[in-house]
Every structure is written in C-alpha cells, then in structure tokens.
C-alpha cells in the first residue's frame, strides 16, 4: 500500500529542506514524521520517505535501523522509557522497571495498544535517579510504589512522542 504524508508534514519537510544544501539531512526529521503519522516504519513508510527526499530505499532503511527511537513494528500509543543505567541502578532503577513490568503486564521491550515499555540508557537526569521518560515528560525520583499513579496519569492525560514532531 502506498502511504502519504499529511499536508502539514509535507510543509514541514519542504521548510526543512531549505535549511540544508541537499535533502538528505532531512531524513531523520522525515522518519520522525512518518512514524508519527503511520505509527511505525513499515517498508511502505520507508518508501514514502525515500520517495519524498529522492533517496534510495536502501539508504533510508539503513538510517532507520540505526537509531533506537525508530520502530519497524507497531507499538503502543505512548512509550515509557525507564533508565537503568548506573546512576539509576544505584538508586533502585531495576526495581522501578520491575514495577512498570508488573503494572503494565509487559516485559521490557514489549508493547500493547496503549504502551511500549523500554529499558532505556541514561536519559540525562541522573541527579534525579531513578527517572523515566514517559511520553514526552520526565518523571524523577521514582519509587516502585509510585508507578501505578504514573501509569494512571498517562492514561488520563496522554503525551505521545508524536506531539513534539
């Protein structure tokens, strides 16, 4: 199935193309937009980006598979990125990750319709460890007991990553 970008996304891409000498540097932005509009980067979504920027499909494929924020398979509407790197681990990051797994009924790396749970590397909030990026928002100094409220809040007031793209 041939996919398209919305008019708004096309405008954004056109504006960005004016900021660089060629269209190639716009590939990350276009992939972010494609993921926002089509949920994940299927082969068709990669073809859409390739066609839009006059790039070979293989190039776009290579780029899309290099970066961890892009996903080739469908995922949850919101992503929870729980850091377990050193500063977070030292203050209970793994225990908080386990609490997320239990509350969501997901193992790290898994998704349901609402959520994708990711074990994340350092997210640059180490002084407020353990911390997570939930949707587009940072949550700090998390205890396992707070995990239920954090998830409930996301269900009530969602902030999918696509809102900043």
């Amino acid at each position, binding site marked *: 199935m041939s996919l398209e970008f919305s008019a708004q996304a096309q405008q954004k891409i056109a504006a960005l193309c004016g*900021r660089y000498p060629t269209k190639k540097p716009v590939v990350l932005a276009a992939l972010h937009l494609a993921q926002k509009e089509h949920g994940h980067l299927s082969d068709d979504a990669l073809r859409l980006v390739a066609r839009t920027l006059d790039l070979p499909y293989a190039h776009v494929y290579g780029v899309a598979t290099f*970066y961890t924020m892009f996903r080739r398979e469908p995922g949850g509407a919101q992503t929870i990125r729980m850091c377990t790197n*050193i500063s977070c681990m030292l203050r209970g990051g793994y225990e908080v990750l386990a609490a997320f797994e239990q509350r969501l009924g997901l193992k790290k790396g898994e998704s349901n319709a609402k959520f994708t749970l990711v074990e994340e*590397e350092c997210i640059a909030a180490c002084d407020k460890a353990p911390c997570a990026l939930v949707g587009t928002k940072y949550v700090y100094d998390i205890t396992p007991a707070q995990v239920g409220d954090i998830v409930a809040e996301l269900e009530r007031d969602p902030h999918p990553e696509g809102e*900043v793209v």
Partner: protein
Amino acid sequence: MPASVGSHLVTQRFGDEKARTLAGYEATGGYSVLRKALSMRPEDITNEVKASNLRGRGGAGFATGVKWGFVPKDAKEVHLVCNADESEPGTCKDRLLIWWDPHLLIEGMIIAAHALKAKHNYIYIRGEMMREYQVLDAAVKEAYARGYLGDNVLGTGIAVHLTVHRGAGAYICGEETALLNSLEGLRGQPRLKPPFPAVKGLFGNPTIVNNVETLMNVPFIVDKGGAWFNELGMGRSGGTRIVCVSGHVNKPGVFELPMGITFTQIINDICGGVWKGRKAKAVIPGGVSMPPLDASELDVPCEFDALQTDERIKPVMVRPGQQFDLGGGRALRTMAGSGGIVVMDDQTDIPRALWRILKFFAHESCGQCTPCREGTGWLEKVARRVGHGEGKEGDIDLMASIAHGIAGNTICALGDAAAWPTLGFLTKFREDFEAAIKRRAA
C-alpha cells in the same frame, strides 16, 4: 580571582521561568554582549577565547580557542555545530542548560559563528530530549523574529543562520564525527581522523563542534575579557565547572562550582555527604567513560589537568605490575570528562556496577571496528557472569586482556571509553572481583 562557591555564570538563570522567553532573557541583560561582539573583529574574539583558557566541556577538555584557530583562513564556507546530544551516563547538565536558558546558548552561538565566519550553523539535540527541543526551537524562532539571526544580524550585514536538528536515539552520535554523519542524513558512524572536522567536517567544509556548556561560556568571555575568565579558574583551565552529582549522596544535583574544588568538598559540602551515613567507595569523576577514583583519591580537584596528572591518583594497570600506557609511556590516571560525578557507597556491588557500564557500551558500539564491536560484547558477557555471581577463575585477567586489546585500536574513542573504566575498576577494586569469583567457587 578564582570563582567561589555561589558564583554563577552559565547557571545564573536556573529557576527563572521567564528567562526562557526572549523578553525575559533580554530583561536580565541578554543579547547585550552580542552587540559588542558584532563590533569586534572575528580574530579578536578568537584571541579572547584563547586567552580565557576555556576548555571544551563535552569530554575531552580541548582548548576552545585553539580549536577555533584550526579553521583554515581561506575557507569559503565554515560551520559551527553545537553538540547537544548529551548521553554520557552520569551527565545531566546540557539538558538543564537548554531548558533554563536557551537564549544564552543562541547568543553564544551567534558570537562564536561571527568569530568563525560561519553562516549556516546547527544544534544537534538528542532525540529523546523532546520538550527541550521545543524550548530551543521556539527560542530560535524568537531570535530570528528579532533580527538576532538571519542574513543581516542587527543590521550589521553579517549573516548567521541556526537550525535545530533532532537526533533519534544513538549515544555514538555524541562523538563529533558520528554527529556530523548523522546531521548529513547518514547512519551515525564515526569518521576516520584526520582529517579533523575543523579542516573537513560538515558537508566537507571546516566545522567546529562544541558542547552546549562550552558555547554558553562565550558571552561571558566577550563581556568581561579572556583574562578575567581565566582567573576565575585554576591552572590552564578558565572559568567555572558544572558538575552533575548522582548516586549515593544525600543531595544529588547539578552545580556550577569553582574549578579547584575537590571531590571530598563536592560530596560533603555541596551534596550533604554520602547517604545513610556510609562512606564513599568509588567515584566516577566525569561520566562512565572515565576510570574511577577510590576513597583515598578524593582530595584532588575536579580540574582537567589535575585529574590527568595528580600523582595522588594511582595509574591504571593492565595487570598488577604492568602500567597501562597512554602512549609514549604516559600513565592513565583519569580525566575530567563530561562532569558527570557518580558516587558509590561502601556497600556497592562493584562488579555489578562495572557490568552495567559495559552493557551500555556493548549496546552503543556502532559496529564499525572489530575490536570495539566484538570486544565490548565479550567484555559485557564476562562482566555479566562475574557481576551475577557466576564468574570463573581467570575472568579478571580475561577482562583486562580484552580491554587492553580494544584500547587505542579503534576509529573513535568509544573503544577507549569501554576499556579505560574496565581497567580502572580492575586496578582499584581487584579484591571485589576476586571475592565475587570466589563466592561462586565456595
């Protein structure tokens, strides 16, 4: 005069919600230095930065003015790229700097771009920093609207453009040549050096890559002079230093401090001591890429040269009796790195901590060079079993020899970043690893 605790340059607007807007920034003196800078000759700005002894805050501590001086004089097109990819574990300052004071970064970049005669400039911001990206992008738009950016900055005829470029998740894109490849729309894999970016960088043009904190210091240097800035610091390191303290202290946080402050002072006076009344066992001084300090080495200042040369810090060993050679017989002690200080108390499971660090590097290796791709994965595997009570006789020597095989044999410094802390932890906490392995035997 050296800075004292409480003197703030780049963090002075922290906590001021209004400073994030152009109006709020201008109300606190923002963009006034830019006018002065635009009236100066580019080479005079570079000379002030040289005199300031400002050193890069991204990790390597390279002298900023000297780096700027590497751009060929006859270059047709030059770029300035701000490295806002912050992802070195333990480091959490650039994200806050952008969040609280985006216009200070923009002002610093316009001044630096004028000094470098760079017209098309970019901020590469880490993909996961979503709200920070919005803040920065909004600030750039404001700066364009007010004429601070554009083809004719404040009517001077000088053109400075700035584009915020989002990454998409990859630690390696913080390495400057990987960052440039990523910016060009490629996979974020490091380039062979030389040529260095200052000679051949973005789109094949001379390019200066500087860290967020580095560029935010530039307006203060132009305002008060390089000599003034240099005197705030210590030795050959001008200015203040932002440290990010995390781990087992009572009050973790991000603090702008004098260069000469010691780790003992940071832990006790600034961070309220080690938590739960315990003692520090290991302290990572500048992000997980750096060898750790042990409890006897904490009276050293967090300044760049001190951490490399102070003889109170033991040299890193390959094995007992064999010092690691940094090249030409130089000892590796540690480095100031990114300012990410991670404190571990005396009950920390050190083998498990090293395993977590190595798991990170194995995950982030871009896979281009065999020693790094294979070596980081192998290191993680051995460290995992040692850290999980399943270590085997000989694993310590095995880890050391893998690390030694990686160090110095790769395209970029990620290989060293995995090898150095491995050798550092094994040097200083060997008994912990031995005990972990014995536990299994028992």
